[in-house]
């Protein structure tokens, strides 16, 4: 199964894809190296959030994704 990474909103264009599946487990350092330098730079932005298993992480650097988890990379919203 692995870990599914979703690129939301403008990240999708930067990533050139809507999602990617990588090997589990995946931590913060692993994520940064998996997504490539452009996305990795975006991930450092304070207002960019990460959800794992449908919950937004209070501290994104504490990420620990197990096999079957879905990670969503959430750029600043621009709703309604």
């Amino acid at each position: 199964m692995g870990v599914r990474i979703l690129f939301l909103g403008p990240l999708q264009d930067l990533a050139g894809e809507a999602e990617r599946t990588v090997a589990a487990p995946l931590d913060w350092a692993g994520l940064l190296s998996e997504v490539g330098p452009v996305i990795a730079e975006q991930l450092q932005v304070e207002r960019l959030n990460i959800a794992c298993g449908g919950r937004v992480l209070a501290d994104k650097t504490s990420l620990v994704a197990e096999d079957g988890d879905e990670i969503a990379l959430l750029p600043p919203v621009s709703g309604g």
Partner: protein
Amino acid sequence: MVTRSRCYLRSAVARLSISSPLDVRLLDKGMSVGEALAAFNAAYSEAGGVVSFLGKVRPDGDVQALELSHYEPLTLPGMEKLSENARARFSLDGALVWHRTGVMTPGEPIVLVATAARHRRNAFEAADYLMDHLKSAAWFWKREKRRGTWRWIEARPQDHLDLDRWK
């Protein structure tokens, strides 16, 4: 996910049923604004005041279309939590919060909010509060198509100032 018991209300005039006290929906096409408001008004006939807000795609210069994307596991639960907060904070009898996703063209509805309360100030403030939060604290990402090219939109500084009013 917010848990609660829901009762479904159906009026004689409205062909549409809404859930009470909160009706929160993500819609991937269309929006029956007139029917929704009729059903809402009928459901809260005992409320002294009912306020509604309808946001539409503005035919802004050369805007051809607008697209809203969302993240299923967060967006609807977030809207439900927001609606619960508004209900408690403003002592609402009920609220309706409907939001479109996907591609919309100028003139099409994007968002419909309705609030029912005993007193008008509460209904007004709750609708205002809901809109400010949907605009800059809900899980939506927006892009616009102008002259054939899609461009992502960021929240305006004004949107964040609007949100700060409630803190």
